[in-house]
Structures are given as structure tokens and as C-alpha cells.
């Protein structure tokens, strides 16, 4: 998911975007300034928040499998370069949509490193909050 390329669609729906990463503040600020100054970025190198939200670590097949390789090649073909993991390379990602009353309205837990919801799915779920 290349979120910064689609942020206008989400921000147009009044959705605030908060990213959580395992990198350092310096890495996070470089990303924010390069791609999207409007993003809020939380630095969580000790993975306190990852654990609090129940995000799991992959086994080896969650990183290297025919599925992850094929999806990775597909993403490359669409012009998306893989990023370099910062922090725990086994940590899987997750996506949550949370309303202003702090109720979770959508959640997606990645089952492997290639398992990300489409931006269309996120926009569809976010649109339901309006």
C-alpha cells in the first residue's frame, strides 16, 4: 500500500492519517517531509503499540513464499519499490479505521508481508463513517 499516493482521497473524506513505524524519529521525519507533511507519525521501536493492537510477527513463510514473491513481483511491475524494513523484519502490518469516539470500525491484520488491504477497500470503509 503506497498510502502517500492516495492520501488526498482519504483526507477528502475527513480522515486523519496516523502512521506507526518501528524506525527512528529521524527516519520518520524524513519520510513525512518527503511524502506527506500532513501525516502524523508515531515512532514505536520497542513495538509497544504493535503489541497493544495485537499485531503479530510472521514466520519464515510469512516473509518468503510463492504468494509473497508473486505479489512482490506484481507490485514491482506496477512501479512500487519494496521498502527496507526498519526494526523487526518479522513484524507484520495492520490497518485500523477508528472513529472519533474511539470505536474501531474496521481492522485488517496482515497474514504475511504481502497482505495489505487495497486503497479502494480502505476508502470504501472510511466512506461509511460519513
Amino acid at each position, binding site marked *: *500500500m503506497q498510502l502517500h499516493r492516495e492520501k488526498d482521497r482519504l483526507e477528502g473524506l475527513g480522515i486523519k492519517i*496516523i502512521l*506507526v513505524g518501528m524506525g527512528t*524519529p529521524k527516519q520518520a*521525519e524524513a519520510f513525512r517531509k518527503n511524502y506527506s507533511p500532513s501525516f*502524523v507519525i508515531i*515512532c514505536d521501536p520497542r513495538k509497544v503499540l504493535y503489541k497493544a493492537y495485537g499485531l503479530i510477527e510472521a514466520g519464515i513463510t510469512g516473509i518468503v513464499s510463492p504468494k509473497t514473491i508473486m505479489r512482490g513481483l506484481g507490485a514491482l511491475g506496477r512501479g512500487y519499490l519494496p521498502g527496507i524494513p526498519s526494526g523487526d523484519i518479522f513484524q*507484520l502490518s495492520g490497518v485500523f479505521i477508528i472513529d472519533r469516539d*474511539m470505536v474501531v470500525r474496521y481492522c485488517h491484520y496482515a497474514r504475511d508481508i504481502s497482505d495489505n488491504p487495497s486503497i479502494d477497500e480502505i476508502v470504501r470503509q472510511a466512506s461509511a463513517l460519513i
Partner: protein
Amino acid sequence: MMIKTGDMATDARVHLSDGSEASLSGLLRQGNTLLVFLRHFG
């Protein structure tokens, strides 16, 4: 423990990239939020 749709979001003190500290609940209550846990920046 995994969070399900309909659950209350978990709160925590968090460190932001600009060096400041905040409560996640304070950030979430500012409006509807997409919270994305990344594997990497970029």
C-alpha cells in the same frame, strides 16, 4: 490480543516523529482516523 470491529481502540502514550509525546486517545478524538502500522517507512 487482537482488536475486533466494534471494540474500543486501545490507548497509550506515544512518541511522535517530531520528538513530542502524546496520548493516542487525544490524537484519535480529533476526528475519524486511519491508523496504519507499517513494516517500514517508504
